[in-house]
């Protein structure tokens, strides 16, 4: 079960600031879901089952091909000089 402390930790690793209201409201909501997915524990582990659905081998990947973008810049914080602007480190 997710406590308020654990919620704060999850928010930190997910990089999301939660409001006080969310900190109070989320634990019971999330715990309902956790309780529900707890049923998965009943399944006995079976190593004979292959779990490779949809996976693609690395050697099947296409080559990277460099193309010039013909639309507007994809990157939002690109300066005219071609630098990427980010928040200050300190």
């Amino acid at each position: 079960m997710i406590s308020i402390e654990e919620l704060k930790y999850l928010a930190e690793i997910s990089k999301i600031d939660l409001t006080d209201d969310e900190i109070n409201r989320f634990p019971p909501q999330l715990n309902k879901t956790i309780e529900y997915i707890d049923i998965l524990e009943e399944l006995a582990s079976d190593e004979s089952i292959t779990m490779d659905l949809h996976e693609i081998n690395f050697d099947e990947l296409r080559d990277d091909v460099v193309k010039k973008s013909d639309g507007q810049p994809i990157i939002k914080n690109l300066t005219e000089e071609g630098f990427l602007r980010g928040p200050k480190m300190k």
Partner: protein
Amino acid sequence: MAHLHDLLAYEVVEGIKGQQFTAEQYVGSMIKRIEDVDSKLRSFITVDSEGALSSAKIIDRKIKEKVDIGTLAGVTIGIKDNISTKGIRTTCASKILEDYVPSYDATVIRKLKENGAIILGKLNLDEFGMGSTTEYSSFYSTHNPWNLDYVPGGSSGGSGAAVAAGECTVSLGSDTGGSIRCPASFCSVVGLKPTYGRVSRYGLISYANSLEQIGPICRSVKDAVMIMNIISGKDIMDNTSIQSTPIAIKSKLGKLNIAIIKELINGSDHDVTRTVYSASEKFKDIGYSCEEVSIKNLDYALPSYYTLASAEASSNLARYDNIRYGFDFPIEEYKWDTYFSNVRKNFGQEVKRRILIGSYVLSSGYYSKYYLKARMLRSLLKLELLKLFNKYDLLIGPTMPILPFKIGEKIDDPFKMYLVDVNTVLANLAGIPAISIPVGFSNGLPIGLQIMAAPCQEQKLVDASLALEDTIDIQRRPKSI
């Protein structure tokens, strides 16, 4: 003649090619229709009237010049707003992407345009596709055209409502756990989720890559086939995409063996169950065999789906840092360690909940308890379904276990909302194709039948759907709008 906005896709193409009306007249009538009804429905996030009219003029000019105009010439398409459209804002119904304008077209968009289809605009959804009612859009809820107080389903609710109300000829949705079939069922239209890989996901903004597919929402099965045959196929930009053969309108497969999934019928509302049984009787009338079967692993399907979808979401949505793409939020006022979590405050509540659940099931100690078990269940379920498909051509049941409900009715209980996806997630977990087709009403609210087939057996889905469509006599257009 009926209103132009009532025409099906193949009728539009015939009308324009036969010069009964011009593409410009047709597109003009669709824009007028949006102006007339969208203030009530709120299906659209962006309408590209200018772009649509200029594409229509090009088609009309090509007709005069006797140049080929493509198999979808003049067909207007509404696009779920999580599919990238070059030069048209693509928001995912999220504040985080409020100002994002893609610099490229998704493969499906490129293919549609190459075949003469006209992009009319971008349609509302639950933020990033996470929801079943379109109430989790950061902008506004979409309303059900059959009763404006009710939800249209989700997450492709705008795509369902716009097609049902004749605001666009057809639409594209995406389906991660039922997001095409749920609104198709709630809005009484046809919605097809293809076999995983049949349609390229290049340009679909990711929520849960291993589960989702783009597919059509239409007012007839024939229209869905037309769209599928254009958007399907191997794409070098999506390594999970696969080659496929075109779907025929008249195949030679003959009578099919159908099985009703007992648990899905038993878990549904009485009126839904009754209507689905009556549809299965119609299958028997046309000579299909029909019996009941059980799925052993069904109880684990939805928990497994929410574990996997949330895990993939938490990883996919980590990219929204508002540096590479995003919305108007000052960079100067924050330092490195606080900027990102402040920016990401702007995700909606449901998106936050799923990211947090995803982080939880992937975190140390819980990974093998939840994530690995969910993946294992997925394989077991797929094996079980494939075994059933050795014996039966199709598995059927209600698309949704309940009727559409009122806007606001379930919004305060996110968990209750999850439970409505119980019938649809099977196809996503197993990667198999599934369609929802309209089969009836209860108190004026639509009921959809879900048909599932083995991987790449879309032809069987279409055969059965066409046969049923012919025998079911129901109201096709909502009167209230």
